[in-house]
């Protein structure tokens, strides 16, 4: 077997982005009770209604049980061992421009290969970089302000625009939704708020780079994007994390709301620390992402490239409420080493003539375990609903696993739904063909895998597509077989 040793190589390829930055953190001691919840709210100087909402969520959370249905195994999480708040030293003194940012932090980003300053000049991307749990850098505010687009941290938004946040926050993912979303509602640290007014096409791609840093700090991001009638926004999210020993819990909540004729494009490149070769120390990524197509002809499109985390539990979903609304889900997920991913989407068709597209590409190598879990529900009133699902798995090596678990529920006779799934390995013929044309085995694999994922990469904004391909190549380095 030519490929066997190469498979070992990929499995062993060390995490490129693993290092820790020394920054003093203002961190709450580990543990969770009502006092901690109050303290978080207080430190963030939140309005009273927020404190109340957090407490309500916390009390409900106490009554809930951790979900067990996903095909992932991990030791029980001790929620009292986690610290629920950590902020950089100067929370009140928020930087107004890059010059004010802690040089050590900038260096961290540079090491990660996220050149904020270059981005500003070259890519025209506004960056709201989250370091630990509080936003510390926001750029391109002026351009956005001119267009009337609000792009800021959730804490800021709660201060400055409570009238814009309150009617939407928690309406797509209520705190009762699931265990982790409920926890997030109680203790969320910070996150991003985007508001695009009526008829405005956001003048640039919005991007946030998340990064988990301080030890023992679970990250509980909260993102809310509201696109008013006829508006358009593209939001990019990417993450890396430093190498560390303890498992880190990440339980983010993302809510998207698209009104009539509005479109939201949400792209993610996720490359958190997956754990070492024994699977120790990786991130637990338990995320709730959901979009609500409230208005007629609105559109929400999720694109994700998931290569990191020890465990991923994530189902970016669309509620297709408005007539003629459109939901899309494009996903590439890579699991190698001991990584486990249970990911997919839900497309809930409620309105008439709604349509959804699901393209999921799973790549499993080493002892990676991957499950596509997707729900397509076509309600009784969803006249003329359409769904097409394509769900392919590629297996590299004989110790990995790929599962496909689609749920299809149709209650309307005019609906049309097609689901196709395949599972296969890279064929010897394909490899041989490439090699006989002079490609190395490694390049051939990379090429074939990139080809396998092309449909999804095509959906990413240009800058991200390049990054995603690079990430995939690094992930599969030496993964020949």
């Amino acid at each position, binding site marked *: 077997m030519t490929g066997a040793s190469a498979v070992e190589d990929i499995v062993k390829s060390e995490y490129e982005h693993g290092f820790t930055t020394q920054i003093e953190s203002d961190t709450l001691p580990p543990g969770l009770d009502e006092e901690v919840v109050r303290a978080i709210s207080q430190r963030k100087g939140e309005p009273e209604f927020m404190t109340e909402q957090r407490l309500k969520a916390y009390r409900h959370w106490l009554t809930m049980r951790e979900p067990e249905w996903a095909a992932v195994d991990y030791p029980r999480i001790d929620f009292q061992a986690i610290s629920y708040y950590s902020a950089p030293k100067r929370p009140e003194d928020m930087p107004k421009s890059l010059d004010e940012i802690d040089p050590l932090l900038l260096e961290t980003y540079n090491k990660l290969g996220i050149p904020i300053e270059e981005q500003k000049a070259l890519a025209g991307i506004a960056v709201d970089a989250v370091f630990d749990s509080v936003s510390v850098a926001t750029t391109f505010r002026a351009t956005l302000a001119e267009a009337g687009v609000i792009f800021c941290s959730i804490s800021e938004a709660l201060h400055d625009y409570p009238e814009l946040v309150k009617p939407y926050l928690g309406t797509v993912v209520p705190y009762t939704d699931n265990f982790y979303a409920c926890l997030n509602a109680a203790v969320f640290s910070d996150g991003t708020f985007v508001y695009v007014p009526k008829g405005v096409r956001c003048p640039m791609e919005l991007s946030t780079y998340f990064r988990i840093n301080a030890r023992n700090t679970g990250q509980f991001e909260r993102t809310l994007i509201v696109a008013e009638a006829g508006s358009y926004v593209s939001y990019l999210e990417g993450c890396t994390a430093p190498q560390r020993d303890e498992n880190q819990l990440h339980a983010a909540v993302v809510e998207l709301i698209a009104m009539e004729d509005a479109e939201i494009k949400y792209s993610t490149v996720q490359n958190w620390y997956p754990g070492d070769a024994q699977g120790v120390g990786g991130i637990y990524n338990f995320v709730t992402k959901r979009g609500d197509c409230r208005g007629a002809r609105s559109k929400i499109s999720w694109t994700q490239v998931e290569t990191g985390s020890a465990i991923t539990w994530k189902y970016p979903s669309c509620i297709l409420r408005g007539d003629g609304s459109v939901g899309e889900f494009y996903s590439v997920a890579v699991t190698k080493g001991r990584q486990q991913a249970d990911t997919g989407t839900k497309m809930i068709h409620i309105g008439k003539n709604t349509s959804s597209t699901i393209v999921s590409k799973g790549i499993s190598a080493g002892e990676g375990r991957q499950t596509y879990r997707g729900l397509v529900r076509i309600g009784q009133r969803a006249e003329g609903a359409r769904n097409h699902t394509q769900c392919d798995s590629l*297996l590299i090596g004989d110790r990995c696993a790929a599962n496909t678990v689609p749920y*299809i529920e149709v209650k309307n*006779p005019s*609906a*049309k739904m097609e689901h196709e*799934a*395949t599972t*296969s390995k890279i064929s010897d013929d394909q490899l041989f063909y490439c090699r006989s044309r002079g490609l190395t085995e490694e390049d051939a694999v990379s090429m074939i895998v990139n080809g396998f994922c092309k449909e999804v990469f095509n959906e990413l904004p240009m800058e991200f597509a390049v990054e995603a391909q690079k990430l995939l190549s690094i992930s599969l380095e030496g993964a020949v077989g």
Partner: protein
Amino acid sequence: MNAPLHSGLEYWLNAPDDGPDLAWLDERRHGARARLSARALPHSKQEAWRYTSLKSLLEQQFTAIDEPLSALQPEDLDTVLIPGFESHRLVLVNGRYAPELSMLGELPAGVRIGGLRDWLQHDPESLRGQLDAALGDSEAFFATLNSAGLDDGLVVWLERGAVLERPIELIHLSVGLDEPRVAQPRHLVHLEAGAQARLIERYVSLGEALYCTNAVMEVVLGRDAVLKHERLQMESRNAFHLSGFYLLQDENSRYSGINIGLGARWARTDLNTRFRGEQAECVLHGLYLAGDGQLLDYHLDVEHAVPNCRSEENFKGLLTGQGRAVFDGRVLVAKSAQKSDAAMSNRNLMLSEQAEIDTKPQLEIYADDVRCSHGTTVGQIEPEMLFYLRSRGIDASQARRMLCLGFAGEVIDQLGVEAVREHVAAAVGQRLT
């Protein structure tokens, strides 16, 4: 001494104690019963029961049948028999083997067929290893319930190389009694190496009676054995139907099964296949037609436990009126099962506003050198097809009917005996008028 079972299922086990007295058999019944009482009733939080509620089943308070129904005369079968179909006919009435209604005919050497009760009385030891051979330690609730109430059924045993030309016809005939009764027959089919047979299993009733069938069939196919199996579920529209089918295949054996589901008010069918030897092949076809007030639920579980086997599942559904159907198919490819080839397809035509289909075709794959796929569609009659027929002068409703029959025909045409094929085609045609 036994803890009572949930929701009156206790009464499913009231079988009379006039059967064979065998300690090992009692032990198995008790074991099954103990496992049941330790377990919760199936509920919608369990993946296998996500879309199917037991509520209407449990409301009926079925009780086990305590004595064989002896009032039937051979001519009572007239409405049930398929004209022109010649078979080795075996009839079970309300779950009990009825030799007086059966027409076994002459069997070639090496073929033994008989009632399970009799067999246990005369040659119990031969069945000791056969019983549960394919079922194994299945956790399926109703199959375990069947084990706990094990009483009668059929045994079909073909010795090495035996070939049965004429089909075996197994008729489950249900006759309504004063109160709702449940029958739990258990069938054992064993084809030794190189044996070949065709088995046509029919579920029918006299009149539109309310009753429940909870049948389990275990099939073991030896090396190179070939079984063609056709199951026609045409129970009364008031009936509840549960059936568990457990198949174990040795090297190079071939199984082909066709499942037709037309009857019953509430039907749940579990088809389980496990490959024990390489180069074996299992093909499962299905056609279900769920109309007003019907729920038809199919669960497929195909386990590729060894390399180089092939499985194919092709199920088609027609939904009319307020019909509901569930298709839950799972293909599991174990770590060592390289070169597995599995293709699953489920296609549905929704023909009415109130119909509902829930489908869940799953792949669970732990080996890399495999070719697995599944496809599902839910849709309506294609307008182009309708137009083509209408452009040839055929009116819209007849055109629609033709297209539905054509859709169903792809499965019906697989039925191997012409008389049976026509019988099913007519029944489907009648349902689509």
